[in-house]
């Protein structure tokens, strides 16, 4: 009675995929094991469209969508959602604005109706916009005190110097102050539209019914003004190795971030880089970096690497939180681990371990409806093909030690690494 793992992975035979004439792609997969349903997806509207002096506009717009529509007030929207025990939220990113929601299956119609209203008819009521602005500004004040966030933000400024990716999506206090109600309405009017939009519906609902309801709510949406995909210029290396320190007085721990620009998700470099990253700073107790910085030297509670490959080339970095007196020691250990990683091939055993880890953990990442919905959206966002998760084990096994070394060496160029330090 046990279930074969490959049968539980989503594939072309159990994912329903429909592309509408207006450019909206719908994905659905049923799961009747629990009486709940999840939606997840994105629209093509992100901070790449923000003017410098109004940075944070896309993010502010996303947060404002549920603050009132032409049909319902803020109170009415949240009364409907929360009375059903449902949730819905939007999050502005660099290329896209994401959304996600969940409800009991009996309330899916309500969830989709509210999603469509928020996307199509937001009203941006002034009183709610000002309350939201206060919350965003408080969030930025808290960010300025957060050593981890400030290290990551400063790291992006270093490695993406001169590139749009150097800008934080949530902006700065002065740019968020500069955004008017009319800016929000105009951003929505000119950028939001169905072209490039993706929505996945996963849970206790028949796929046909899910697709019909999405079509009913969003099938006739159009926006002739909607621009094409925003192209970003290529990224490069910083002109010189650069270390930048942000002083945040009164704190107890310093955060570090060291690394460079990595590959984009669609790149053939992605899997070798991801497996290499797993060996460098994830596998077991945070990989080689964790072994050296945490287990052997006892310098940090967390010391790990991450590869944030997205639509464009994301950062490939090592992060750690250390005692302020141990910054140099930790930086030296991290740099020497990166140097070893780009100069010697990983061992046969290390690669085999990480390959087994990637293949084995896939079903676990698809345990919940939200895990499956996120996986379906990624298939679409990165053009992976509906059978990607079934092919994945073979793709992972095909990666060689030489590919890992060659890929690492092209991205983590030793004398071009950026380093950001934030702490007292």
């Amino acid at each position, binding site marked *: 009675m046990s279930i074969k793992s490959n049968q539980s992975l989503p594939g072309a035979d159990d994912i329903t995929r429909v592309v509408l004439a207006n450019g909206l792609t719908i994905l659905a997969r049923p*799961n009747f094991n629990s009486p709940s349903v999840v939606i997840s997806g994105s629209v093509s509207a992100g901070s790449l469209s923000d003017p410098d002096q109004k940075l944070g506009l896309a993010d502010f717009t996303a947060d404002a969508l549920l603050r009132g529509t032409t049909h319902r007030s803020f109170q009415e929207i949240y009364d409907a959602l929360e009375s059903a025990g449902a949730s819905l939220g939007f999050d502005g990113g660099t290329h896209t604005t994401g959304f996600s929601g969940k409800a009991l299956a009996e309330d899916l119609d309500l969830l989709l109706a509210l999603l469509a209203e928020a996307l199509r008819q937001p009203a941006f009521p002034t009183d709610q916009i000002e309350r939201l602005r206060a919350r965003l500004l408080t969030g930025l004040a808290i960010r300025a005190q957060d050593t981890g966030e400030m290290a990551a933000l400063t790291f992006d400024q270093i490695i993406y110097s001169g590139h749009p990716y150097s800008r934080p999506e949530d902006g700065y206090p002065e740019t968020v102050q500069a955004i008017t109600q009319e800016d929000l309405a105009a951003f929505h009017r000119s950028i939001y539209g169905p072209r490039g939009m993706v929505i996945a519906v996963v849970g206790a609902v028949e796929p046909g019914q899910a697709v019909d309801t999405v079509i009913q709510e969003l099938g006739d949406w159009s926006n002739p003004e909607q621009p094409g995909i925003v192209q970003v210029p290529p990224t490069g290396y910083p002109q010189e190795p650069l270390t930048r320190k942000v002083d945040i007085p009164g704190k107890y721990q310093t955060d570090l971030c060291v690394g460079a620009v990595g590959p984009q998700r669609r790149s053939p470099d992605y899997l070798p880089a991801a497996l290499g990253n797993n060996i460098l700073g994830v596998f*077991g107790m945070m990989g080689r970096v964790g072994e050296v910085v945490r287990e052997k030297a006892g310098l940090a509670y967390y010391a790990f690497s991450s590869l944030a490959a997205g639509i464009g080339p994301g950062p490939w970095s090592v992060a750690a939180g250390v005692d302020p007196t141990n910054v140099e020691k930790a930086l030296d250990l991290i740099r020497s681990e990166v140097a070893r990683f780009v100069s010697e091939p990983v061992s046969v055993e290390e690669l085999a371990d990480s390959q087994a880890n990637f293949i084995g953990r896939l*079903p676990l990442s698809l345990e*919940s409806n939200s895990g499956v919905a996120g996986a379906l959206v990624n298939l679409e966002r990165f053009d992976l093909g509906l059978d990607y998760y079934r092919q994945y084990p073979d793709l992972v096994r095909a990666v060689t030690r030489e590919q890992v070394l060659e890929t690492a060496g092209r991205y983590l160029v030793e004398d071009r690494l950026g380093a950001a330090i934030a702490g007292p």
Partner: protein
Amino acid sequence: MQTNLTRTTLSNGLLVLLKEIHNAPIISAWMWYRVGSRDERAGITGISHWTEHMQFKGTPRFPAEVLDKAVAREGGYRNALTFLDWTTYFETMPADKIDLALDLEADRMHNSLFAPGEVESERTVIISERQGSENEPLFLLGEEVQAAAFRVHSYHHEVIGDLADLQAMQRDDLYNHYRTYYTPSNAILAVAGDFKTEVMLARIRQLYEGLPPGDLPAHKVRPEPVQPGERRLAVEGPGETTYVQLAYRAPAATHPDFYAYLVTDSLLTGPSNLNLFSSGISNKTSRLYQALVEKELAVGVFGGLTATIDPFLHSIVATVHPSSNAELVVEAIDAEIKRLQDAPPPASEVARAVKQARALFAYGSESITNQAFWLGYAEIFADYDWFLTYLDHLAEVTPQDVQHIAQTYLRPQNRVLGIYLPTDQNTSQTTEEPA
């Protein structure tokens, strides 16, 4: 809900709970020990959490580096958590690999080394973990509030422990703690997922029944006396943002008032999400969001209760609006509490809280890991029946019960009021250094 559930005790006292769930080829196994910061006294605060860390440092059969990699190699996910009343270790694995988890948990219940060198390198790791928490204003405030709420009971200190004790504790303190509390008779093994109960139970007997039962450890608890009046405190620290925390002395999870208190908290601060592996929902229609955020006194508010063995705290935390202040926030919270004390809420509002709980319960049941978590967690402070009847008990709560909770518990004399006061308006400075 009751189908496919087995609850049995092995001859050495190990309580075993098994629940077959055949949704996905996954099994989640949790080993719970009845030990947490509640069992600590001054001088060894943080010892339960540190012991948890040492459980990742290896046994003769599974040395640390082997242990670290073995689970990950099979695609498993594992972690450990230490809290007030408990310490737990879990592995969620592909179903055909679960034997590794069962085997290593049996091994490290008895055979962990606690090598002196490993104890020393872990000391600085844990101090670093504490420093990371100290960077957060809400940790600094919460630690002071908790300490003020419990003068006598060992819920007084944070699970991570006090720095003085983290600097002073020695290997033998940790090892003795391990030997005292890590015994079958003080443990619960909970497994949920894609297995056959008969086969799973036979394997568990094979791995665990031979372990010596150990002496049932005494849990020496000093009950907290009735609080004689409101306690107020201030914490000062960096930043621009003011926070307010109100902590009311709340009943234990098995107290008949606990369910009505959950509903009361839901009305005030939004639905409580007791799941560990599923996110909650928004609270914008809750009474305190309406009174604080919609009135521009705060930019956010949250709250919640914790299911504990002994009475713990009901907390309400508000992030103060930049143009408001802590006093105005406290006044507005008090006015909302008075409204509940003066008149029971509409039945529809109570019914709504119950529907919200039902939805959160459904979201939580999507995850096998979360279901296995509940099997053991509920046994720590009550039994699994507590979880199975949770929604029924909530449905029995009446508007009068909610009013009773507000009148009985939500009194200033029963609370600690803590305020985080930011000391500066400095923005951070950036400097560039040569590499």
